[in-house]
């Protein structure tokens, strides 16, 4: 038994190391006072300060934020009403199975296929209106399309958790649909909606593939900037930038975890 426990411990530890060592290395080099080498030359925050003086990076950060915020807001709204519509309307049983598939498709479909489809779609739309030239609007629309499915999935599972009896109780107590939505359904759904929105935000923040295929010359985001920069040379500045993006993602994931856990406790 003891031997197995030891083996189990070692393999778990090495898996964790395999997952997190590269990330830690990036963070490590972002505060290393050396431009090229792999050896430790002392602690510095220079790379971080230089980051904030770089116009290109600031612009990319701004684009990333605008893209993530706008697409999250729209997809949260769409995803929520989509989930309510799917779960609460008395659809025939067969429709429910179809909905499940439709919802999961954007989640499991490879990003690259999704992105290629976007290129085709926008190529067609562009012939109708020039606003669909590659750029931020296209990116926002493309992000909304895949985020909506994620939000709807999260909200729908929360809806299933609330159950229908609570809403029947509201109706039994003379609440019309608007009153019921405002006073019962939406307040109970809020944790699910927030969790869905945070998931959508994180996905948008980190997305590379779909952004890459829909971005224009003026709508570079951080992931796209990092990709372009790394192709020339990996500088400690990029390490610093990556570390910051990583930190923001970690904070979002922790927040989401907290919210989901609080919901499950109730």
């Amino acid at each position, binding site marked *: 038994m003891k031997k197995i426990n030891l083996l189990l411990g070692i393999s778990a530890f090495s898996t964790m190391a395999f997952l997190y060592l590269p990330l830690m290395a990036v963070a490590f080099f972002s505060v290393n006072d050396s431009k090229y080498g792999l050896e430790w030359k002392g602690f510095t925050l220079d790379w971080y300060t230089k980051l904030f003086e770089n116009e290109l990076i600031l612009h990319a950060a701004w684009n990333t934020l605008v893209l993530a915020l706008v697409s999250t807001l729209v997809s949260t709204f769409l995803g929520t009403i989509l989930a309510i519509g799917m779960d609460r309307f008395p659809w025939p049983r067969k429709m429910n199975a179809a909905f499940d598939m439709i919802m999961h498709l954007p989640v499991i479909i490879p990003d690259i296929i999704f992105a290629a489809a976007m290129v085709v779609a926008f190529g067609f739309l562009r012939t109708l209106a020039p606003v669909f030239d590659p750029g931020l609007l296209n990116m926002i629309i493309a992000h909304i399309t895949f985020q909506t499915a994620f939000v709807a999935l999260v909200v729908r599972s929360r809806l299933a958790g609330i159950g229908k009896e609570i809403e029947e109780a509201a109706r039994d107590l003379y609440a019309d649909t608007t009153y019921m939505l405002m006073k019962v359904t939406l307040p109970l759904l809020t944790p699910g909606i927030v969790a869905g929105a945070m998931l959508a935000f994180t996905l948008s923040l980190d997305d590379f593939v779909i952004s890459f295929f829909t971005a224009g010359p003026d709508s570079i985001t951080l992931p796209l900037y990092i990709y372009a920069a790394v192709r020339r040379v990996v500088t400690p500045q990029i390490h610093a930038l990556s570390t910051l993006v990583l930190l923001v993602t970690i904070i979002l994931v922790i927040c989401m975890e907290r919210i989901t856990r609080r919901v499950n406790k*109730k």
Partner: protein
Amino acid sequence: MKGLSLQGINKTFGKVHAVRDVSKDIHSGEFFTLLGPSGCGKTTLLRMIAGLELQDSGRIILDGEDITGLPAIKRHINTVFQSYALFPHLNIFDNVAFGLRSRKVPGAEVNQRVKDTLDMLELGEMTKRFPHQLSGGQCQRVALARALVNEPKVLLLDEPMSALDAKLRAQVQIELRRLQQKLGQTFILVTHDQDEALIVSDRIAVMKDGQIVQYGTPAEVYDFPKNRFVAEFLGSANLFEGTYKDGRFHTAIGIFELEKPPPWEKGLIAIRPEWIRISDTEPAKNGLRATVTEIIYRGTNLDISLNPGPVRLRTSTYSRIKIGDELWLDLAPKEIAVLNG
């Protein structure tokens, strides 16, 4: 007519005929119980009265007004749900005030009525708490308060005791009965618990396969079950099959006299275990000589099985009966229920 009138109600779910042609008048101020095993259609019937389910055919009349097509929010009927369905994000006061506020009752009146109702149900201390901070019994009272504060013409209770433990349940049943008598409101209870139905009800409708198979006061339904299902579902019963000829009922274990001739030639009679008396000497009528084969001690009484039969009877724990004893049983004609089938 004052009260609730169900007229030819039918409901099917796919191929399942959940409620079959149910017609019943429920008088105003009556404690009415729908009793039956799970899947007998009692909850479906209750949901149709509440307006949460739409019947396929039939009409529902409340105090002379046809409410057949009205949705739940337009019916002056409130429900205590099986899971209570309290709003977890609202405190007890707001839970109880919900029905008044959604009808835009003025604030001062809401406060007064909620306070009065909570006091009546001894929940006055709980107003600021949330449902998850209450015990099962308290949640049940909140659900009751939330419905009663609206002064409904009919209060529906969907298995409201099923989440309580046995001891609390017995207490709550009596409280519920007293409350209903004090308020004089119409209560309709759905339950599968025969004891509960007997304790609380003015009238019981026993349901099976979507139909009401017997209807009457608790004593009528218990003492004179009309058929095998009711006899066995409420309490336990000794059932004897036989033929009626020459003014007497002939069974495999003996020949018995009945109070009235049955409407059939071949059929069933039932006799409750607690009605069979033990006698040292042969009774004048319907005596049966039997041997004790099993004794089960139940604290409040003994359950005894005897041969031939087997006959089961219930007697006090004082009786000094041993396995193997030969006894005379007195199956008095007035204690025998004649079943229809």
